[in-house]
């Protein structure tokens, strides 16, 4: 299953690169915006259907109430501590490093925000580190789910509301749907504030 996903990713990168560099006139926005959004909306709709059709999912959900807030709060603490540790290891500015990981995987936000606040290098770091967080979540999902059903949600951060959401529901079970979505939702709401607040301390 994951090999098809990696193949689709590689094919996408190759196609994007080819179109951007060897052909002129193809409107990239058709894929990077419209196709991406359309696929996302269809998926969210199908995910909602899958969840509501499963009679046991609602019952399973009753037991998850508290996790709705606990998970994103722990992901915030874990991500920022992770940034601090990485900053110490790579001898980078600690606040810069924490600002990068306070994007929780939302690279399209963290990249541009940090480019504006701290310059191109931090912007590239913000983009790359958060993109790799999403990519690593996709690649390691089958391993993480063996450790704990909710581990991929922690790993995915803000991406569990959209790009990694369908994978998480598929591999972790439909009872994790609300936790995955709400954790991604809370982290997406908070990411702009934590990135800006921490970056302003640099």
């Amino acid at each position, binding site marked *: 299953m994951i090999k098809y*996903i990696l193949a689709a*990713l590689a094919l*996408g990168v*190759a196609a994007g690169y080819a179109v*951007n560099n060897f052909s002129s006139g193809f409107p990239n926005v058709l894929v990077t915006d419209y196709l991406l959004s359309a696929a996302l909306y269809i998926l*969210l709709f199908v995910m909602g259907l899958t969840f509501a059709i499963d009679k046991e999912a609602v019952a399973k959900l009753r037991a998850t109430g508290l996790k709705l807030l606990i998970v994103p709060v722990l992901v915030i603490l874990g991500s920022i501590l992770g940034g601090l540790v*990485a900053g110490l290891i790579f001898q980078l500015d600690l606040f810069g490093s924490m600002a990068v990981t306070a994007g929780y995987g939302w690279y399209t936000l963290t990249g541009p925000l940090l480019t504006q606040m701290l310059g191109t290098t931090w912007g590239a770091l913000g983009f*790359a*580190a958060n993109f790799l967080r999403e990519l690593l979540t996709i690649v390691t999902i089958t391993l993480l789910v063996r*450790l704990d059903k909710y581990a991929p949600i922690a790993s995915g951060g803000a991406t569990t509301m959209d790009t990694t959401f369908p994978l998480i529901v598929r591999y972790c079970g439909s009872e994790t749907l609300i936790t995955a979505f709400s954790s991604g939702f809370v982290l997406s709401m908070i990411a702009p504030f934590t990135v800006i607040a921490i970056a302003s301390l640099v």
Partner: protein
Amino acid sequence: MVNITILYLMIPLAAGIFFGYRLRQRKHINLNRVTFAVILVLIFSLGFTIGSNNDLLMSIPAVGVSALGMAVSAIIFSVLFVVLVRRKLKI
């Protein structure tokens, strides 16, 4: 801008849940194949977005190692916190 994005994402999810409840009494519906096909389209589009961004591709070798370190570190501590608290509180 953030709020509008979230709204756009909530509408199809809510619509899916609404129609799903109405379809409950029907015979078993298997959506796995549809889901997987759409996932592939989504991941392809994501790849395309990255591949068509020359600035990003150029910056990957330069910042790659620290970026990978940050990503791995953030993942490890997030997973660690969630797993430990889940086991401690049995939730």
